């Protein structure tokens, strides 16, 4: 908007913030870009748009990604020249240093008009980078690279394919309706969906809440919805006027077993034809003991590793937990150093770190655990040796950093996270009303 020539007052009016706040954001932008004037900011935006608008929005090619990259063929030529001239081992080392992860936006754009409970809405916009989302809370990707988004504030499930977005379900600002996906057929309300998941057959699942009852629905290849399971009263009062989503999490094994995080019930349930308690409901943290006797507090995000060990974003406990598939025991993977939220511990043991309301979790093929440290506006990772480190986000809330190293980017309350089969990390940057991506973060799953 600065680049569009808007004054701070005009920006404030458009964003429903104060002029003072707009000025503060501009100051942060200047600091971040290392420039002094509005004109320099404008010049930077023009350069960035030229870069960002050039590539199509389609999902990246599914190729084996090297641990280092050179962005342009000319760079190879330059590198070869340097090597030839210098013949230096130092130059070789520099060339083979891994590139830092970069972040970019794949879905969503700035709202023209903010709506309650945040985010925005316009009639379907096909180009994903122009789409208007409202508090996207969850994202999932199938094996063909089709992205599904729980556009929670708009009461819609979105699908992005080849850079084009469509609405699969929901009429916007109202509960989902039962019926054929993609049509306005409506009979009974399905309630509100905050969570999406995809199984190994590319079947889409939704976790919904209707009359305080959690339900799971599947979507078959013909677009028909099927009720999978209802999970009983859960005391989750959902309204679009209250930012009370997500209601829980969902993870599916290759064999089709469902794990459902029941946020309000402080538990994780397993559904394999019958529903059983898998973790939670206890009164003590319970690390090392049976998961079914452990305490969970407001569990949301779920993810499975190769061995089907379950990782839980134990949001209210400010921890990431892990349930051992074979033993049924629970341990803390990250967080738990203190009683309250915090933002410490990078470079050290993950269990001595402080987190702030982690909401989403994913597991890489090598066992690295990635999670959204939502209250800190960051993403962090725990390596297989148990060390925690920064992955993305400077820790300051805002929207910045597309095209820059991910650790320098700004996020705003990121919630859902999904690692696709090609190793791309999708992030529901919830309060920025966008889905962002760190491409090629890990090798194919």
């Amino acid at each position, binding site marked *: 908007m600065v680049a569009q020539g808007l004054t701070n007052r005009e920006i404030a009016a458009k964003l429903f913030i104060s002029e*003072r706040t707009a000025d503060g954001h501009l100051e942060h932008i200047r600091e971040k870009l290392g420039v002094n004037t509005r004109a320099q900011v404008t010049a930077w935006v023009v350069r960035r748009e030229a870069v960002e608008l050039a590539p199509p929005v389609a999902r990246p090619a599914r190729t084996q990604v090297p641990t280092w990259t050179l962005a342009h063929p000319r760079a190879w030529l330059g590198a070869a020249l340097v090597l030839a001239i210098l013949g230096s081992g130092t130059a070789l080392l520099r060339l083979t240093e891994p590139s830092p992860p970069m972040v970019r936006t794949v879905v969503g754009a700035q709202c023209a008009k903010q709506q309650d409970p*945040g985010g925005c809405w316009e009639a379907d916009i096909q180009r994903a980078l122009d789409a208007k989302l409202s508090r996207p809370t969850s994202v999932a990707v199938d094996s063909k690279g089709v992205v599904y988004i729980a556009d929670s504030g708009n009461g819609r499930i979105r699908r992005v394919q080849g850079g084009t977005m469509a609405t699969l379900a929901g009429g916007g600002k109202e509960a989902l309706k039962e019926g054929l996906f993609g049509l306005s057929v409506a009979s009974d309300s399905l309630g509100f969906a905050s969570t999406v998941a995809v199984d190994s057959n590319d079947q889409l699942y939704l976790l919904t809440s209707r009359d305080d009852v959690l339900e799971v629905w599947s979507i078959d290849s013909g677009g028909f919805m099927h009720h999978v399971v209802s999970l009983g009263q859960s005391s989750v009062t959902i309204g679009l006027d209250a930012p009370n989503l997500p209601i829980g999490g969902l993870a599916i094994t290759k064999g089709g077993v469902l794990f459902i995080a029941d946020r309000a019930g402080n538990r994780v349930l397993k559904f394999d034809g019958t529903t059983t308690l898998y973790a939670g409901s206890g009164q003590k943290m319970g690390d090392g003991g049976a998961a079914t006797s452990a305490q969970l507090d407001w569990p949301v995000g779920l993810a499975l590793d190769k061995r089907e060990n379950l990782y839980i974003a134990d949001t209210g406990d400010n921890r990431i937990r892990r349930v051992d598939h074979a033993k049924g025991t629970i341990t803390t993977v990250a967080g738990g150093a203190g009683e309250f939220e915090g933002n410490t511990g990078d470079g050290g043991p993950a269990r001595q770190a402080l987190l702030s309301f982690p909401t989403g979790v994913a597991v890489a093929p090598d066992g690295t655990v990635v999670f959204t440290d939502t209250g800190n506006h960051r993403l962090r990772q725990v390596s297989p040796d148990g060390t925690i480190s920064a992955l993305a986000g400077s820790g300051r809330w805002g929207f910045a950093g597309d095209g820059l190293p991910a650790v320098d980017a700004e996020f705003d309350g990121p919630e859902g996270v999904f690692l696709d089969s090609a190793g791309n990390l999708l992030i529901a940057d919830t309060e920025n009303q966008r889905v962002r991506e760190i491409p090629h973060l890990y090798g194919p799953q």
Partner: protein
Amino acid sequence: MIKTLTTLLVTVLTAVACQSAGNTSARADIIIASDLPTSAFDSALPFEHAIDFAIRSRSTIEGYSVAYWPLDNSLGAQQSQLRGRGNVRRMIADPSVLGMVGPFSSFVGRIEIPEANRAHLAMISMTTTSSCLTLAIRVCQPTAAELRPTGTNNFFRLPAPDPAQGKAMAAYAATKLGLRRVAAFNEFGPEGAEYIKQFSDEFASKGGTVVYQQELDDSTSDFSAFFTQAKLRRADAVYAVANVSGNACKAAAQMTKSMPGAVFLGTDGISLDNECLRDIGPTPPAIWATSPTVDAIANPDPAVKDLVNAYLKAYPAASTADLFPNVTAYTFAAFDCARILIDAIGRAIKANGGKLPNRMQVVTAVAQTKDFVGVTGTYSFDQNGDAVTPMMSIYTVRDGHWLNVPL
């Protein structure tokens, strides 16, 4: 009241002038905390200023130093129950915290109150209006009793529970407007029925009758059937328990044609809403609506005006934000909440022989607050924690604007 407020003004001006900013970070014997969504909503910032203003006016309470600890319950750009609960736990962990102002929203209150209740931490809210926080209402989940696991109330508030607007509107309609026969419609569901019950009971006590009542869906756009029934029963006014998005003000426009000369009565679902002013059209009926607030700026009391000016002088940076006025309808309610806590802590110290009281003693002192003269009203609390005479205002539409009228 003027004398009391004038005394307060002198105290505030003197104390604030003598203190530098940054009192909030000082370590003190007594800490008053707040839990507000200040980074999510710019409009919440004046509450912190107002609380700070009240606390800075008192460098000590009965000889003990006092400081302010503002906490923010925003997570991303939203209010967060989780962060609010975490903030309350942090307050509880600090033994110097003897009370808190907040929360801002009822849905955050429903998760904070039980935490604070277990620790006997006094809470005073300037904005929450949900009946479920204080009243024994069957449809509430959780109930007010479930929010108080110790069985002793620790939550107090200055605004009325929402349905009390019905009682206030009825009293005004009967005594100031001289109305006697009212038809009512409800788009708020079970809680809306409670508005109408309170309206009906109060109206009857003053000689009026609710002659017709109908439940409507909030998507209703054609109110002609309702007006036909109201007219048949010779209603001289309509009480609409509905909001602007539920077409309440479009109903007012339709009433002009269906029931010429009838008065339209509403709730805070329409009062002070500019969209309503558009919906009622160019020839609206006489409209009156309640708001569970008291706007200090509209107060003609010279002492209040001086206090508002002193506040604006103390926080000049915020007053430049014209998109969010630095003094909103609830700003001085936050100021009053802090002052009520200070007053109660002072009484608790005295009752404790001059020693610092524990939290339960502070809760008891807040509950015993009697006729406390604040900027927004004079306060005592009932056994549920609701103000006996809660904040309430009546607005009417005049020349295309909402105008505050004396009660």
